Protein backbone atom coordinates (compact mmCIF):
# COMPACT_ATOMS: atom_id res chain seq x y z
CA UNK A 1 0.00 0.00 0.00
CA UNK A 2 1.32 3.41 -0.94
CA UNK A 3 1.69 5.92 1.91
CA UNK A 4 -0.99 8.24 0.50
CA UNK A 5 -3.42 5.30 0.44
CA UNK A 6 -2.77 4.81 4.13
CA UNK A 7 -3.45 8.52 4.74
CA UNK A 8 -6.71 8.35 2.77
CA UNK A 9 -7.69 5.19 4.63
CA UNK A 10 -6.94 6.84 7.97
CA UNK A 11 -9.05 9.87 7.09
CA UNK A 12 -11.87 7.58 6.04
CA UNK A 13 -11.82 5.66 9.32
CA UNK A 14 -11.61 8.91 11.29
CA UNK A 15 -14.57 10.34 9.39
CA UNK A 16 -16.63 7.21 9.96
CA UNK A 17 -15.85 7.26 13.70
CA UNK A 18 -16.75 10.95 13.94
CA UNK A 19 -20.02 10.14 12.20
CA UNK A 20 -21.12 7.61 14.82
CA UNK A 21 -21.98 10.07 17.63
CA UNK A 22 -23.42 12.47 15.07
CA UNK A 23 -25.74 9.77 13.72
CA UNK A 24 -26.68 8.73 17.26
CA UNK A 25 -27.49 12.35 18.17
CA UNK A 26 -29.56 12.74 15.02
CA UNK A 27 -31.52 9.57 15.87
CA UNK A 28 -32.07 10.83 19.44
CA UNK A 29 -33.29 14.20 18.18
CA UNK A 30 -35.62 12.47 15.71
CA UNK A 31 -37.04 10.28 18.51
CA UNK A 32 -37.60 13.32 20.72
CA UNK A 33 -39.40 15.11 17.89
CA UNK A 34 -41.55 12.01 17.33
CA UNK A 35 -42.35 11.82 21.06
CA UNK A 36 -43.49 15.44 21.17
CA UNK A 37 -45.39 15.17 17.89
CA UNK A 38 -47.30 11.99 18.73
CA UNK A 39 -48.00 12.51 22.43
CA UNK A 40 -48.86 16.20 22.30
CA UNK A 41 -51.65 15.37 19.85
CA UNK A 42 -53.67 14.67 23.01
CA UNK A 43 -51.86 16.16 26.04
CA UNK A 44 -48.65 18.02 26.80
CA UNK A 45 -45.52 16.01 26.10
CA UNK A 46 -44.75 15.39 29.76
CA UNK A 47 -41.03 15.74 30.58
CA UNK A 48 -39.67 12.17 30.45
CA UNK A 49 -37.86 12.52 33.79
CA UNK A 50 -41.25 12.82 35.54
CA UNK A 51 -41.70 9.03 35.35
CA UNK A 52 -39.14 6.29 35.92
CA UNK A 53 -38.06 4.29 32.87
CA UNK A 54 -39.98 1.26 34.15
CA UNK A 55 -43.25 3.25 34.09
CA UNK A 56 -42.62 4.47 30.54
CA UNK A 57 -41.96 0.89 29.49
CA UNK A 58 -45.34 -0.21 30.82
CA UNK A 59 -47.19 2.78 29.37
CA UNK A 60 -45.68 2.33 25.91
CA UNK A 61 -46.41 -1.40 26.11
CA UNK A 62 -50.12 -0.72 26.63
CA UNK A 63 -50.93 2.27 24.43
CA UNK A 64 -54.07 0.56 23.13
CA UNK A 65 -55.51 1.05 26.64
CA UNK A 66 -54.00 4.35 27.69
CA UNK A 67 -55.95 5.67 30.69
CA UNK A 68 -59.25 4.79 29.05
CA UNK A 69 -58.40 5.60 25.44
CA UNK A 70 -56.78 3.80 22.54
CA UNK A 71 -53.56 5.72 21.85
CA UNK A 72 -51.87 2.98 19.82
CA UNK A 73 -49.06 3.70 17.41
CA UNK A 74 -47.45 1.50 14.77
CA UNK A 75 -44.78 -0.86 16.08
CA UNK A 76 -41.77 1.08 14.73
CA UNK A 77 -42.93 4.42 16.19
CA UNK A 78 -43.78 2.79 19.52
CA UNK A 79 -40.30 1.30 19.73
CA UNK A 80 -38.60 4.55 18.76
CA UNK A 81 -40.47 6.58 21.38
CA UNK A 82 -40.20 3.84 24.00
CA UNK A 83 -36.42 3.58 23.62
CA UNK A 84 -36.06 7.34 23.91
CA UNK A 85 -38.25 7.53 27.03
CA UNK A 86 -36.43 4.59 28.61
CA UNK A 87 -33.13 6.41 28.06
CA UNK A 88 -34.38 9.72 29.44
CA UNK A 89 -36.88 8.66 32.08
CA UNK A 90 -36.58 8.93 35.82
CA UNK A 91 -34.66 10.80 38.43
CA UNK A 92 -37.04 13.68 38.98
CA UNK A 93 -36.63 14.90 42.57
CA UNK A 94 -34.68 11.69 43.24
CA UNK A 95 -37.91 9.73 43.03
CA UNK A 96 -37.24 6.47 41.24
CA UNK A 97 -40.18 4.41 42.35
CA UNK A 98 -42.99 3.51 39.94
CA UNK A 99 -46.06 5.52 40.97
CA UNK A 100 -49.44 3.72 41.21
CA UNK A 101 -50.89 3.06 37.72
CA UNK A 102 -47.79 4.76 36.31
CA UNK A 103 -49.51 8.09 36.83
CA UNK A 104 -47.26 11.15 37.14
CA UNK A 105 -49.98 12.69 39.30
CA UNK A 106 -49.65 9.90 41.88
CA UNK A 107 -45.89 10.17 42.25
CA UNK A 108 -44.77 10.98 45.78
CA UNK A 109 -43.13 14.22 44.63
CA UNK A 110 -46.25 15.32 42.74
CA UNK A 111 -48.51 14.70 45.73
CA UNK A 112 -46.02 16.54 47.97
CA UNK A 113 -45.71 19.53 45.65
CA UNK A 114 -49.48 19.90 45.23
CA UNK A 115 -50.49 19.28 48.84
CA UNK A 116 -51.95 22.75 49.25
CA UNK A 117 -54.30 22.45 46.24
CA UNK A 118 -57.84 21.82 47.46
CA UNK A 119 -59.89 19.08 45.69
CA UNK A 120 -62.42 21.70 44.56
CA UNK A 121 -59.66 23.50 42.64
CA UNK A 122 -58.84 20.33 40.66
CA UNK A 123 -62.52 20.03 39.76
CA UNK A 124 -62.79 23.53 38.27
CA UNK A 125 -63.73 23.40 34.58
CA UNK A 126 -60.73 25.53 33.65
CA UNK A 127 -58.35 23.26 35.58
CA UNK A 128 -59.79 19.88 34.54
CA UNK A 129 -57.81 17.65 36.88
CA UNK A 130 -54.19 17.24 37.95
CA UNK A 131 -52.95 15.80 34.63
CA UNK A 132 -53.68 19.07 32.84
CA UNK A 133 -50.42 20.79 33.86
CA UNK A 134 -50.79 23.71 31.48
CA UNK A 135 -53.99 24.91 33.15
CA UNK A 136 -51.89 26.42 35.96
CA UNK A 137 -48.27 26.02 34.81
CA UNK A 138 -48.58 28.26 31.83
CA UNK A 139 -45.21 27.30 30.37
CA UNK A 140 -45.63 23.58 30.97
CA UNK A 141 -45.54 22.67 27.30
CA UNK A 142 -42.03 24.16 27.17
CA UNK A 143 -41.02 22.06 30.16
CA UNK A 144 -41.08 24.96 32.66
CA UNK A 145 -42.83 24.27 35.95
CA UNK A 146 -41.40 27.04 38.13
CA UNK A 147 -43.64 28.11 40.99
CA UNK A 148 -43.26 31.70 39.79
CA UNK A 149 -45.18 30.87 36.60
CA UNK A 150 -48.14 29.30 38.37
CA UNK A 151 -51.49 30.91 37.79
CA UNK A 152 -54.52 28.99 39.06
CA UNK A 153 -57.61 29.81 36.98
CA UNK A 154 -60.85 30.65 38.81
Amino acid at each position, binding site marked *: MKPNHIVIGAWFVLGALAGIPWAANAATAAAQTRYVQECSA*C*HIAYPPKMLPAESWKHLLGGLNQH*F*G*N*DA*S*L*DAATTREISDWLMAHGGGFRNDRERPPEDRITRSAWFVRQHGEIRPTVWRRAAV*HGPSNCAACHREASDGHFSEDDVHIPK
Partner: protein
Amino acid sequence: MSSMSKRITFHLALVLCGALIGMQARADSGAEQLSRYESQIGRSGQPEQGRLFFISKHGGEWSCASCHTENPKAEGKHARTDHVLDPMAPSMNPKRFTNAAKTEKWFKRSCNDVLSRECTPEEKADVLAWLITQ
Protein backbone atom coordinates in the same frame (compact mmCIF):
# COMPACT_ATOMS: atom_id res chain seq x y z
CA MET B 1 -24.44 -1.28 -25.31
CA SER B 2 -22.58 1.84 -26.43
CA SER B 3 -21.40 4.25 -23.77
CA MET B 4 -23.86 6.86 -25.11
CA SER B 5 -26.90 4.60 -24.72
CA LYS B 6 -25.64 3.52 -21.30
CA ARG B 7 -25.56 7.14 -20.27
CA ILE B 8 -29.09 7.74 -21.58
CA THR B 9 -30.37 4.66 -19.73
CA PHE B 10 -28.73 5.92 -16.54
CA HIS B 11 -30.36 9.34 -16.86
CA LEU B 12 -33.75 7.81 -17.59
CA ALA B 13 -33.41 5.62 -14.48
CA LEU B 14 -32.62 8.74 -12.42
CA VAL B 15 -35.70 10.54 -13.72
CA LEU B 16 -37.84 7.49 -12.95
CA CYS B 17 -36.50 7.30 -9.39
CA GLY B 18 -37.21 11.00 -8.91
CA ALA B 19 -40.76 10.57 -10.19
CA LEU B 20 -41.38 7.64 -7.84
CA ILE B 21 -40.11 9.62 -4.84
CA GLY B 22 -42.21 12.59 -5.94
CA MET B 23 -45.33 10.41 -6.09
CA GLN B 24 -44.69 9.19 -2.55
CA ALA B 25 -44.23 12.71 -1.23
CA ARG B 26 -47.30 14.13 -2.97
CA ALA B 27 -49.98 15.05 -0.46
CA ASP B 28 -52.90 12.68 -0.25
CA SER B 29 -56.49 13.90 -0.07
CA GLY B 30 -59.77 12.80 1.46
CA ALA B 31 -61.22 12.16 -2.00
CA GLU B 32 -58.33 9.87 -2.91
CA GLN B 33 -58.57 8.01 0.39
CA LEU B 34 -62.32 7.65 -0.09
CA SER B 35 -61.85 6.24 -3.58
CA ARG B 36 -59.41 3.66 -2.22
CA TYR B 37 -61.97 2.52 0.38
CA GLU B 38 -64.65 2.49 -2.33
CA SER B 39 -62.60 0.29 -4.66
CA GLN B 40 -62.01 -2.03 -1.70
CA ILE B 41 -65.72 -2.42 -0.90
CA GLY B 42 -67.12 -2.13 -4.42
CA ARG B 43 -69.63 0.64 -3.71
CA SER B 44 -69.71 4.39 -3.13
CA GLY B 45 -69.43 5.91 0.33
CA GLN B 46 -72.87 7.00 1.57
CA PRO B 47 -72.67 10.44 3.24
CA GLU B 48 -76.00 10.11 5.10
CA GLN B 49 -75.02 6.67 6.42
CA GLY B 50 -71.74 8.23 7.52
CA ARG B 51 -73.51 11.04 9.36
CA LEU B 52 -75.77 8.60 11.22
CA PHE B 53 -72.77 6.45 12.10
CA PHE B 54 -70.91 9.52 13.39
CA ILE B 55 -73.67 10.69 15.73
CA SER B 56 -74.72 7.22 17.03
CA LYS B 57 -73.42 5.71 20.27
CA HIS B 58 -73.34 2.09 19.03
CA GLY B 59 -74.24 0.77 22.48
CA GLY B 60 -71.26 2.34 24.25
CA GLU B 61 -70.61 5.47 26.27
CA TRP B 62 -69.50 7.68 23.38
CA SER B 63 -70.27 8.53 19.77
CA CYS B 64 -67.76 10.14 17.41
CA ALA B 65 -69.73 13.33 18.03
CA SER B 66 -69.15 13.11 21.80
CA CYS B 67 -65.75 14.63 21.12
CA HIS B 68 -66.01 16.00 17.56
CA THR B 69 -69.57 17.44 17.93
CA GLU B 70 -72.28 16.74 15.35
CA ASN B 71 -70.97 19.59 13.21
CA PRO B 72 -67.78 18.60 11.34
CA LYS B 73 -67.03 22.27 10.68
CA ALA B 74 -66.86 23.04 14.40
CA GLU B 75 -64.00 22.52 16.80
CA GLY B 76 -64.44 19.59 19.15
CA LYS B 77 -63.29 18.85 22.67
CA HIS B 78 -62.11 15.48 23.93
CA ALA B 79 -64.69 14.06 26.33
CA ARG B 80 -62.04 12.90 28.80
CA THR B 81 -59.12 15.30 28.48
CA ASP B 82 -60.85 18.49 27.28
CA HIS B 83 -58.18 18.69 24.56
CA VAL B 84 -59.39 20.93 21.71
CA LEU B 85 -59.88 19.02 18.44
CA ASP B 86 -59.60 20.77 15.09
CA PRO B 87 -62.64 20.55 12.79
CA MET B 88 -63.03 17.27 10.87
CA ALA B 89 -64.25 18.86 7.62
CA PRO B 90 -61.43 19.60 5.16
CA SER B 91 -63.42 22.69 4.11
CA MET B 92 -62.62 24.16 7.53
CA ASN B 93 -59.35 22.38 8.20
CA PRO B 94 -57.35 21.69 5.01
CA LYS B 95 -54.88 19.46 6.87
CA ARG B 96 -57.55 16.78 7.40
CA PHE B 97 -57.09 13.57 5.40
CA THR B 98 -53.83 14.61 3.73
CA ASN B 99 -51.98 11.59 5.12
CA ALA B 100 -53.52 8.12 4.76
CA ALA B 101 -51.43 6.62 7.58
CA LYS B 102 -52.67 9.31 9.95
CA THR B 103 -56.28 8.72 8.87
CA GLU B 104 -55.87 5.00 9.57
CA LYS B 105 -54.17 5.66 12.91
CA TRP B 106 -57.06 7.78 14.14
CA PHE B 107 -59.81 5.55 12.71
CA LYS B 108 -58.26 2.65 14.65
CA ARG B 109 -58.01 4.61 17.91
CA SER B 110 -61.36 6.39 17.75
CA CYS B 111 -63.32 3.33 16.54
CA ASN B 112 -61.87 1.32 19.43
CA ASP B 113 -62.88 4.07 21.86
CA VAL B 114 -66.42 4.36 20.47
CA LEU B 115 -67.27 0.83 19.25
CA SER B 116 -64.69 -1.30 21.11
CA ARG B 117 -63.59 -2.64 17.72
CA GLU B 118 -62.00 -1.34 14.54
CA CYS B 119 -64.27 0.14 11.85
CA THR B 120 -64.98 -1.72 8.65
CA PRO B 121 -63.90 -0.24 5.28
CA GLU B 122 -67.63 0.32 4.59
CA GLU B 123 -68.01 2.43 7.74
CA LYS B 124 -64.83 4.39 6.98
CA ALA B 125 -66.00 5.07 3.41
CA ASP B 126 -69.38 6.35 4.62
CA VAL B 127 -67.91 8.60 7.32
CA LEU B 128 -65.28 9.96 4.95
CA ALA B 129 -67.90 10.54 2.22
CA TRP B 130 -69.87 12.66 4.71
CA LEU B 131 -66.93 14.58 6.21
CA ILE B 132 -65.31 15.61 2.92
CA THR B 133 -68.57 17.00 1.53
CA GLN B 134 -69.30 19.27 4.51
